[in-house]
């Protein structure tokens, strides 16, 4: 198992490197010139040239990439063109908010979604099972930002019991938790529905499998058959989807962060894109990618725990 984990973890390095190179290329294809953006419309050509030299923008692309990579190794992602802050400190400030939002939301959604799906499959003939199936469809159909707006309308305007804006960092742990409820729900509601549907389908398949019939033939209690024997098999597709879905989740987090005015990676990147603040865009996307790769790594590792056949492939 350990060998598999190490092997799998080492793959993160070339993956990130590849992303970095593509990203580096893409940013420089974007229209607009960072030096003139930074210095404003009345900048003299001399000033622009000086800034280009300071930021190595006058050098060939591979050289710039080299500077950038060396910087990353040193923990330096460059400086924001706008604010002059270090990109790494901007990210360090934003990242915990996004990570907290994304992973609480996903974690709770996965737990609820998978259990609901399993339940709906086991009770496929009962009205409760049918209700769960319909409700999960509804969850899938609502986009994050619509859910966010509706929730805000309901719980901040109609029945004002929850805070609408910010991350609540000044009010301690309870403040953070209370400020997390609505954004996390908005972001997770689609996942609950999606994972419930996915788990229900694969659970229905698994419940017809020969090994489930074996367990029934030996009088293993129905609940153990469903929630141990079957669910461990049925949860495998959900793990893949969660791993791959972290990208989509981070995308959703951008909307949710903007709607709820939460500080975070999404808001940081979007603001930076509008401002043509390339170093921040690059750093932000790099960190988002790293999160994505990390999530996939975690998914693969949990795969091996769920399905012992994987690590031997």
């Amino acid at each position, binding site marked *: 198992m350990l060998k598999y984990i190490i092997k799998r973890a080492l793959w993160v390095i070339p993956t990130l490197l590849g992303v970095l190179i593509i990203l580096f290329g893409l940013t420089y294809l974007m229209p607009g010139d960072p030096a003139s953006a930074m210095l404003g419309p009345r900048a003299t050509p001399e000033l622009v040239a000086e800034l280009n030299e300071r930021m190595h923008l006058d050098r060939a692309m591979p050289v710039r990439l080299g500077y950038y990579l060396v910087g990353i190794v040193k923990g330096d992602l460059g400086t924001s063109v706008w604010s002059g802050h270090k990109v790494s400190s901007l990210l360090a400030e934003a990242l915990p908010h996004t990570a907290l939002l994304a992973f609480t939301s996903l974690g709770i959604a996965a737990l609820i979604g998978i259990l609901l799906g399993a339940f709906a499959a086991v009770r496929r003939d009962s009205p409760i099972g049918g209700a769960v199936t319909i409700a999960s469809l509804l969850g899938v159909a609502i986009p994050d930002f619509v859910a966010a707006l509706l929730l805000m309308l309901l719980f901040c305007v109609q029945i004002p019991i929850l805070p609408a804006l910010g991350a609540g960092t000044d009010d301690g742990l309870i403040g953070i938790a209370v400020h997390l409820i609505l954004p996390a729900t908005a972001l997770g509601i689609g996942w609950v529905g999606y994972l419930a549907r996915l788990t229900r389908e694969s659970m229905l398949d698994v419940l*017809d499998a*020969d090994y489930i019939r074996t367990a029934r033939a*030996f009088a293993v209690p129905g609940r153990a058959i469903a929630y141990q024997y079957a669910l461990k098999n049925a949860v495998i597709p959900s793990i893949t989807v969660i791993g791959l879905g972290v990208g989509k989740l981070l995308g959703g987090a951008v909307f949710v962060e903007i709607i709820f005015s939460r500080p975070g990676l999404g808001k940081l990147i979007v603001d930076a894109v509008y401002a043509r603040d390339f170093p921040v865009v690059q750093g932000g996307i790099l960190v988002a990618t790293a999160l994505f790769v990390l999530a996939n790594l975690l998914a693969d590792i949990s795969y091996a725990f769920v399905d012992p056949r994987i690590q031997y492939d």
Partner: protein
Amino acid sequence: MSEPLLEVSNLTLDYNLGGRKMRALDRINFTLEKGEVLGVAGESGCGKSTLGLAILRLLPRVAEIRRGAVFFKGTDLLKLSEEQMELEIRGQEITMIFQNPQNALNPVFKIETQMTDILRVQDRNQNPGSRKRHQHYRKQAIERLKLTGIADPEARVSNYPFEFSGGMKQRVMIGMALSSGTSLLLADEATTALDVTIEAQINKLIIDLAAEYGISVLYVTHNLGVLAEMADKIMIMYAGRIFEMGEKEMLFGSPRHPYSAALLESLPSRQKKGRRLLSIPGFVPPLDRLPKGCSFHPRCVFAEDICRKQVPPLTEVASGHWSACLLDQKRGRQKWQWT
């Protein structure tokens, strides 16, 4: 005579598939004595696997038992509650091993987990309130593996099913299914997925262990040759009905039904060298489009007008020998020479 261990009486069962009714079992009657091995043979789709599943009430949801009874030690299993089936019958008195060992074990749990779970269920159903430790059941599982001829059971018990070959998986299944508490084993094509040498070993294991514990076996197979080795009684099924049933020697020596005779003639061992093996023309009809009269008549070279009109009843044609052929019943015993 004492009560038979198993008495299936008039068992009739339909599959409801999208409004179509298919009669998978039609008036099945037979008895099985203690310690006896009954071989059930027939081509694919003749209802023989359904029979085993019906006895344990593990049928798919589309199946519906129309009438009949399954008396086990005098109790009609079809009238028991689901709880009673779990508490007293399944995995205790009656156990089952399945066709495809590759899929019959759960791929994501260790053999140890799957065996100890079953042993724990068995123990708790027999001795309510039993609270033995996992180690106890683990030892028991290792003993069962040893009994079925798995080398190094102490280490192998912690393996996953994918680390076992097909034959070894079937040994594991046998280890789960055969114990001193079992009275009846239902073996559903237990060796069909295995290669021939392994098949012989596994069959010997089943028969030896069953004999040792006095377990009766209902052995379902499409391979009549296997039954020649291991069965006491043979039942030939076709399209959901029993065509012929009797002691092995009687049925093999003088088959009374043309279908049985044809099956026997298609066995390689029975043919003289140099002659072509018999292949019965046509195939088993779909159950929702059974021909009128005897369901075998379109494939039977001996068929006459009466076969197309009348459904032949299963009749005792000699003591302990039953057959469902109108021609046989009309004219008496004759040699059904297909080639």
